[in-house]
């Protein structure tokens, strides 16, 4: 019985996959040539890389909401404080891991800044830079060089919400000038860089927060 049900599921999944492949080949050519339009408008965007131009300029609204979603995800996680059993005492770590971490983390910081800067004209940008920063924080935490975040101090709150606030402030300011997130062509480049710097810091903190916002092990043992 179970085998028949399994076979039926496999068969219907296979049929669905085939149907998807067939329909993909039968799709009509897109009526709007988006890549071409992006290329045409690229000089007005303030950056030279089409992906960054779409993310931060042409579809800046989407990115704004995306950042809000990430912040909400972290807030949701913080709202439901999970009971977390105290971690077992770690065996003394060998010196290689902390040593390598101390060597790698500054390089990761440098890589993040490079990715942020490179976003203007080649693959890179705020999200990638933030992910590298967050990875550095996780690495530091895993080697006991950075304790878990146990409380939300004002500085941390500002850092977490800052990117979104800067983005919204710029959007609101531009609303007075014309439309939401329609950058003036002359200042588009610097505005995008400004937003991206704020986003990198905030997103880095948010992504790291998903890992680091845990009740301190020592706190729980007391």
């Amino acid at each position, binding site marked *: 019985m179970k085998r028949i049900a399994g076979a039926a599921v496999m068969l219907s999944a296979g049929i669905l996959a085939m149907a998807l492949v067939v329909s993909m080949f039968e799709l009509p050519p897109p009526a709007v040539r988006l890549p071409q339009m992006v290329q045409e408008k690229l000089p007005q965007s303030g950056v030279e890389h089409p*992906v960054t131009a779409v993310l931060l300029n042409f579809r800046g609204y989407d990115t704004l909401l995306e950042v809000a979603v990430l912040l909400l995800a972290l807030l949701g996680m913080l709202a439901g404080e999970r009971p*977390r*059993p*105290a*971690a*077992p005492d770690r065996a003394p770590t060998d010196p290689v891991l902390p040593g390598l971490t101390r060597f790698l983390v500054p390089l990761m910081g440098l890589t993040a800044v490079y*990715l942020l800067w490179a976003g203007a004209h080649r*693959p*890179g*940008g705020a*999200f*990638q830079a933030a*992910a*590298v920063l*967050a*990875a550095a924080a*996780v690495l530091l935490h895993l080697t006991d060089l950075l304790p878990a975040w146990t409380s939300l101090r004002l500085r941390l709150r500002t850092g977490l919400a800052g990117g979104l606030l800067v983005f919204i402030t710029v959007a609101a300011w531009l609303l007075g000038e014309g439309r939401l997130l329609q950058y003036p062509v002359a200042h588009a480049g610097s505005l995008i860089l400004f937003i991206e710097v704020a986003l990198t810091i905030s997103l880095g903190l948010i*992504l790291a927060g*998903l*890992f680091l916002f845990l009740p301190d092990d020592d706190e729980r043992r007391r």
Partner: protein
Amino acid sequence: MGILFDLLLAFALLWSAWRAIALTDPASAVVQFIVFGLLMALAWARLRAPDIALAEAAIGAGLTGALLLDGLGTLRTGQRQRDEQHGSRP
């Protein structure tokens, strides 16, 4: 040469995806998931989408993998403590 690599990559992707859901040991499944994420990043790079490849490698494989491993550790510690409380027989 390129097509051979792509075919191999596609096969490896499907295989690692299947292993990640079919393995019954959670630890191996998580490792397989990380492998899948890295292969996926490679696939995006082959599709000439380096932006997505960077994001996939950093977030899909790196951070998600670390979070899954952390969750796994928490689950195990919880299990051990429950066992101790209930005085499980060896």
